[in-house]
């Protein structure tokens, strides 16, 4: 034995193994040896392009047999004899194809991102904890488990997920776990509740701007506030057709006597802002046309929910059947049931209601212990949760969150984002109410007619949705459904005093008074995140509404007849920019061409020839958008800067309407930072000159065409950390104000058209693929179809078709 060489060689070997067995920071977060091992690492996730998904599986938790038939797009058609078994298998399949996504999203929802991403995620986790997301999910779970049937379904679903997780060998775990070097965690019913709260937060948390509005309130006059942030746009085409007569309100909230002095005249600014507010453009389109307007005589329902586009997609397509029901559509991995789809009798779709269901109350604590707070002249006890945020590779971080009867005190001295925020602000949010929102979808899956649809959706509390409906019996309908506080005029626009019960929500709008319409004479209904009703609705309903798409949809549907499903697909892919059509002629009329620089003149000429369609190759949309953005800065920012703290920028529609009215807007046209008095022509010239500088830079890069300019991209869930897993440079047009609402990385996350004739004729597509595995050919195989505006025919399989050649693989589940 040669001791010295042996020792040296052994040390080299073990050092190599050690170095290859540990992660190396941000860039190489995985142990390279393990990651590159063909028998352990990522090569195991390189799915054979001819992979055989067929299997025969046994689980003692099942009551009977479940057969799953996969078609060539890897869509599972699930046939179960018992409904519990159906959700067990749904959970199993969600986990099999989307485990990382479900695990990540619920961890983020719970405020546990730092466990995966390390200390950079601590601020995001604190925000989730202080916003009481787990508190909301725990409340929801109570509602979900109160009903024994619902509890059985959620439990079966959880067991299905865990059956898959437990069957996983280490070499089989999804790729992202191998990259980030962590392991899947067992599922619970609470995590299903967390997933639904993630959706609630995405859609119904950021639909207010109370903090920023409170700041604005301190600077602007009443008149200015009304002009800058109007409740109802002149051009609004509400969801519920104009002229609908509303019932007398069942509840009339009373404005507190002291509101004018202590609420509408607040002196102090808030200076707190929320850092992680969801995208304001989380919106959607849905519409339904009655048989009177279609070629076949059967109603057609269309829906395209606009969300952050991601890989894996938020949606997973499925057909779920038992001997008692048969439903097809998209599901949310992490939750049982079909969320958007159709069954043998009805079809439904959703858009976001955009209503403000969240308020801030200012809390006065007795002392720094924060054990009591002032309420109606007395001291009320608080409760507290000490939140432990575990951090990957670092010691835990602790945060104490105080709870009042309103909800958690999100902002206080230890958690501010501004300069002077010494205020304690508690959140009151409808999302904290106990309930079982999933039941709405479960009952919709089974619903056979209008009455059952109404009963089903009445379970929906938060996020409130516009549920559009069509039935084979010929009914079309829409309901804006959710739980909404009945507010007095102005209530909740700004932070409210938390020590006076007269500022509390005094009740909720009775469910039957939620905006709704059934079989209107005009033969169609639509929603596109606009205000649901005109000013005659008897309640005060603030929100973050979007007006333009609704106008465009109304315009087209009004003028259509003999409609086919193909017409509806074309409409979903429509690129017409209704906002530009309103404002561009106005720009052209008032801009002084002779004062433009050479570049600006060139772009103006290009704009003159634009047909207002935001196609992928148009330059007009790029020029219009850049000019308008530049104009908004010139119009608003000097005014808002005066406030010195964040205030909401008036929305595009408001800006346009003010300009077209040509009155109040002129007050803001004058740049307060310059001595001269500016005119509309001045500001149009200067904003276009400024825009032209930017446009010419883009022009030189060859990025003046709209698609090249906005670079449509579907990111992996981990965004720029995993760019090779993203799809960039997609050739699609559209914008947020356009029916085909594709932005840089946000837009139609599922497009569906269903004609409800005797034989259902349905089409759908989403920008992703059924497999969440970046190593699978089914990871992103729908994206090109989606980008081209094409659809897949949705195959509603019958049990007798098990031998059909469309069936590619079969998994048989049994006891």
């Amino acid at each position, binding site marked *: *034995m*040669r*001791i010295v*060489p*042996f020792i040296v*060689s*052994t040390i*080299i*070997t073990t050092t*190599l*193994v050690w170095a*290859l*067995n540990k992660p190396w920071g941000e860039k*190489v977060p995985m142990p*390279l*040896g*393990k990651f*590159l*091992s*063909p*028998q*352990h*690492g*990522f*090569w*195991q*996730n*390189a*799915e*054979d*392009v*001819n992979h055989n998904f067929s299997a025969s599986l046994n689980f003692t938790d099942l009551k009977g047999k479940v057969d799953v038939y996969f078609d060539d797009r890897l869509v599972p058609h699930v046939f179960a004899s018992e409904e519990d078994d159906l959700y067990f298998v749904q959970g199993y399949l969600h986990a099999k194809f989307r485990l990382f996504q479900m695990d990540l999203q619920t961890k983020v929802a719970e405020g546990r991102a730092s466990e995966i991403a390390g200390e950079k995620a601590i601020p995001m986790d604190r925000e989730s904890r202080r916003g009481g997301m787990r508190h909301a999910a725990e409340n929801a779970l109570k509602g979900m488990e109160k009903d024994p049937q619902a509890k059985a379904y959620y439990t079966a679903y959880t067991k299905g997920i865990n059956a898959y997780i437990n069957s996983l060998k280490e070499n089989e775990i999804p*790729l992202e776990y191998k*990259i980030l070097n962590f392991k899947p965690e067992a599922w619970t019913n609470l995590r299903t509740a967390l997933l639904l709260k993630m959706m609630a937060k995405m859609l119904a948390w950021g639909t207010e701007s109370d903090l920023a509005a409170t700041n604005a309130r301190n600077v602007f006059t009443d008149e200015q506030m009304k002009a800058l942030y109007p409740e109802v746009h002149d051009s609004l085409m509400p969801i519920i057709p104009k002229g609908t007569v509303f019932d007398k309100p069942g509840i009339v909230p009373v404005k507190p006597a002291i509101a004018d002095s202590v609420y509408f005249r607040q002196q102090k600014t808030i200076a707190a802002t929320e850092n992680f507010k969801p995208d304001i453009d989380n919106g959607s389109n849905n519409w339904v046309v009655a048989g009177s307007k279609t070629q076949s005589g059967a109603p057609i329902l269309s829906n395209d929910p606009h969300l952050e586009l991601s890989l894996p997609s938020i949606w997973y397509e499925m057909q779920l059947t038992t001997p008692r029901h048969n439903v097809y559509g998209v599901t949310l991995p992490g939750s049982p049931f079909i969320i958007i789809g159709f069954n043998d009798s009805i079809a439904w779709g959703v858009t976001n209601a955009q209503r403000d269901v969240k308020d801030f109350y200012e809390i006065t604590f007795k002392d720094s212990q924060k054990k009591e707070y002032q309420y109606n002249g007395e001291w009320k006890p608080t409760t507290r949760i000490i939140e432990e945020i575990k951090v990957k590779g670092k010691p835990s971080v602790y945060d104490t969150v105080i709870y009042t009867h309103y909800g958690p005190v999100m902002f206080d001295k230890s958690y501010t984002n501004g300069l002077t925020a010494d205020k304690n602000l508690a959140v009151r949010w409808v999302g904290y109410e106990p309930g079982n929102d999933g039941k709405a979808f479960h009952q919709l899956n089974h619903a056979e007619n209008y009455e059952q649809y109404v009963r089903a959706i009445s379970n929906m509390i938060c996020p409130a949705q516009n549920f559009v409906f069509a039935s084979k019996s010929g009914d079309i309908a829409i309901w804006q459904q959710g739980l909404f506080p009945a507010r007095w005029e102005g209530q909740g626009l700004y932070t409210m005093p938390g020590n006076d019960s007269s500022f509390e929500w005094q009740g909720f709008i009775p469910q039957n008074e939620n905006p709704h319409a059934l079989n209107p004479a005009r033969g169609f209904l639509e929603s596109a995140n606009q205000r649901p009703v005109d000013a005659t609705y008897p309640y005060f309903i603030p929100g973050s509404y979007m007006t333009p798409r609704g106008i465009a949809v109304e315009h087209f549907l009004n003028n259509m007849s003999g409609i086919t499903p193909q017409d509806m697909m074309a409409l979903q892919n429509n690129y017409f920019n209704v906002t530009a059509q309103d404002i561009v002629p106005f720009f052209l009329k008032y801009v002084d061409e002779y004062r433009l620089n050479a570049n600006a003149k060139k772009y103006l000429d290009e704009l003159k020839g634009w047909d207002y369609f935001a196609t992928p190759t148009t330059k007009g949309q790029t020029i219009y958008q850049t000019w308008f953005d530049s104009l908004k800065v010139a119009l608003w920012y000097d005014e808002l800067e005066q406030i010195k703290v964040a205030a909401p920028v008036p929305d595009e529609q408001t800006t346009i309407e003010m300009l077209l009215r040509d009155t109040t807007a002129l007050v803001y046209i004058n740049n307060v930072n310059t001595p001269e008095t500016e005119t509309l022509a001045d500001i149009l010239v200067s904003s276009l000159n400024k825009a032209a500088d930017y446009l010419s830079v883009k022009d030189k890069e060859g990025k003046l065409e709209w698609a090249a300019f906005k670079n449509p991209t579907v990111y992996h869930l981990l965004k720029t950390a*995993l*760019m*090779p*897993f993203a799809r960039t440079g997609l050739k699609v047009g559209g914008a947020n104000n356009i029916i085909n609402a594709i932005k840089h990385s946000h837009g139609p996350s599922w497009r569906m058209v269903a004609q409800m004739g005797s034989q259902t004729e349905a089409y759908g597509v989403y920008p992703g693929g059924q497999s969440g595995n*970046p*190593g*699978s*050919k089914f*990871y992103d195989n729908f994206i090109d179809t989606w980008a081209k505006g094409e659809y897949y025919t949705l195959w509603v399989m019958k049990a007798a078709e098990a031998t059909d050649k469309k069936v590619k693989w079969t998994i048989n589940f049994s006891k």
Partner: protein
Amino acid sequence: MKFIIATILTILLSFIAGLYLPWWGFAIAAFIVGLLVHQRAGRSFLTGFTSLFILWLVLAWWQSSANDNILAGKIAKLLGIGNNATLLIIITAFIAALVAGFAAMSGSFLRSKPIGK
């Protein structure tokens, strides 16, 4: 001949180790072969190196070609070597080869007589 036997043995043992042990199981396999099938240190190194280079190369290539290199291309980009599946397969094989070479050599040193005896 010894070299070929040792190489085949290392490949077989390493493959089996990969089924039951963590990724570095092949280092034990190479070490044992280095110890049992006695060769000079340099030869042992070459045996371990060659064996694992072949094993990991074939396994990675096999899986990647069945996958049309979909994933290997993405991972290669992620690791900063461009969309180059072949290079990633070679790097993969080289890393295991290096570890196995030293492991086999350690085995050989443990067995061999000190110089001059």
